[in-house]
């Protein structure tokens, strides 16, 4: 474990000597911790023009379901201060199309792929997951349980511990031993650690936090909701403090022994290496870029390289050593103050 105030005690080291690999569980180590967030990089082809996919830690696909989906009507998007609302609604062509047309292309281009899956019922999670074992390039499954459960009057799976448990358990049952399963949580719950506990008990190999925050906007010219879907998901830097808090709370529960420790993937408003480091210090072993890609599709490699420089400046030899450092109490509690001179 690295020292509490790394800067205070060590000389900077050469960025080239930093071990950037991201250990995301017993069966998954990525070459670097920078992923794309589901739904923010299409199926990869579009992003590849700006960020060669093999350079990413991994690409997370748009959430895929057993069948094709049209998504919601437009307007599907509206900008908000330092954020945006979307109600894309899981538009996608289904698992067949993914397996036949997209995964081979991604594998060919050297992408490591985390496939985000969902269903409207527990069984549909399993139906989708079962198709992924042995597929080229696929390094894991992200179960997007932050989606509505028709069997529970449309309540989002991740709002209920039992529904979360069932969905994750169903995916684990079919995913096979080689594909780690991450459960993706919504922050829109009273206690996120309860949902995290349900998922880890169900066998989740890791947790992704956070999905978008439920929000809405009203067009003050037309007097109508700005989105055709009325409510939508808030994303972008506006929600970063909420996401950091969720990661910190869940990591703290794991440190204190009340939750089984699993690696965390942090996301929500990350737009720079500084932001990425914030999540890593909070307890994330890997981070994903979402909304920020819409502004800057070249961002992933900047974040990766700046993060490497930052770790070097702080004399932290390995990314893994930085994970969760914000939870360590400094010897004395006098917090370093800035010298204004």
């Amino acid at each position, binding site marked *: 474990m690295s020292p509490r105030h790394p800067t205070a005690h060590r000389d900077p080291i050469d960025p080239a000597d930093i071990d950037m690999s991201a250990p995301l569980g017993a069966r998954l180590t990525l070459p670097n911790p920078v992923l794309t967030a589901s739904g923010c990089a299409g*199926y990869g082809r579009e992003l590849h*023009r700006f960020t060669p996919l093999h350079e990413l830690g991994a690409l997370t696909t748009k959430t895929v379901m057993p*069948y094709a989906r049209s998504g*919601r*009507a437009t*307007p599907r998007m509206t*900008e908000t201060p330092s954020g945006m609302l979307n109600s894309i609604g899981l*538009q996608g062509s289904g698992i067949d199309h993914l397996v036949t047309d997209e995964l081979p292309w991604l594998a060919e281009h050297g992408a490591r792929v985390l496939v985000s899956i969902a269903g409207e019922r527990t069984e549909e999670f399993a139906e989708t997951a079962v198709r992924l074992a042995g597929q080229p390039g696929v390094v894991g499954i992200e179960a997007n349980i932050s989606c509505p459960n028709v069997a529970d009057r449309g309540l989002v799976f991740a709002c209920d511990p039992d529904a979360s448990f069932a969905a994750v358990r169903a995916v684990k049952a079919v995913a096979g031993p080689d594909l780690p399963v991450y459960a993706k949580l919504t922050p829109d719950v009273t206690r996120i650690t309860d949902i995290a506990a349900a998922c880890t008990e169900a066998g989740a190999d890791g947790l992704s936090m956070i999905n978008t925050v439920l929000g809405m906007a009203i067009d003050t010219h037309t007097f109508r909701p700005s989105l055709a879907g009325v409510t939508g998901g808030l994303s972008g*830097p506006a929600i970063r403090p909420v996401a950091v808090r969720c990661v910190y709370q869940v990591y703290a529960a794991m440190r204190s022994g009340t939750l089984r420790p699993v690696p965390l993937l942090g996301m929500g408003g990350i737009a720079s290496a500084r932001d990425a480091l914030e999540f890593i210090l909070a307890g994330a072993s890997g981070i994903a870029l979402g909304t*920020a890609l819409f502004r800057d599709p070249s961002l992933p490699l900047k974040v990766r390289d700046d993060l490497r420089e930052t770790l070097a400046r702080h004399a932290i030899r390995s990314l893994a050593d930085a994970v969760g450092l914000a939870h360590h109490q400094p010897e004395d509690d006098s917090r370093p103050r800035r010298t204004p001179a």
Partner: protein
Amino acid sequence: MPPTQTAAVIRRIEPVGAYHRLTLDAPAAASANVRPGHFGALAIGGPTSATLLRRAFSIHRADPTAGTVEFIFAEHGAGTRALARHHPGDTVDLIAPLGTPFPLDGGPQRAVLVGGGYGSAPMAILAEAVLARGGQVAFVLGAATADRLFGVAEARALSPHVHVVTDDGSAGERGQVTGPLPAAMAAIDATDVHSCGPMPMLKAVTTLAAAAGARSHTAVEEAMACGTGLCMSCVLPVTGPDGVTRFLRSCTSGPVFDGTTVRWDDTGTLPADLEGAAAMTPYAPKETDPA
């Protein structure tokens, strides 16, 4: 040629009627085989800006020699208002060229170019391209008011057939572009109509073009968050040659679509035949690799 991303320095920014003409130093984009109908997506404001998303603007002109790309933009919401307050020397991040441009293949066209408001911005280079391929052009340019008309002088320099309309009659005839369009098509026995402007205009133009036996190429304007195909916010119901309607992204499959394939009356709705549609893919057939 793939789009390029550049921190582009503003060379000039100046009013033109109710709009602004923005000239960016962006040599790579300017040399990237810009075609009429391509657009650029701008990120406005630095790291402390609360407006995150990209703003899309039709490329008015790209000059590979000068290394510049020009846009004509209207102040609308927060981002364009902030852009209008920029000065020469300021930087904006540009991704260009983007999208599917107006089609010019299939022999010389006799084309009517219809622009509504700043929708006239791409029409001059489109006319030049049609003419360079041995074709003929006529223009119908419309706007709400005279100060929102754009490109009339350039049009007149390129064609004897230029019709101008405004809603309030403050310039040209009072009325809408659909008024003079039949005459404009007749004057050159049009094979193609290219249009850019608000959706209801594109729909009406398509109806008239189809009635006259001309192809209708429409550059649509759907709200875009990224402009690069990542977010799926800019979709439109478009019917493919296989008869299946898909939600296609106007930033990659468009902004130019064959007007007869767009289900204009269904934009902003979720048509029943799309819900859970079996053939729902984000790509049009034979358009799987944007690179």
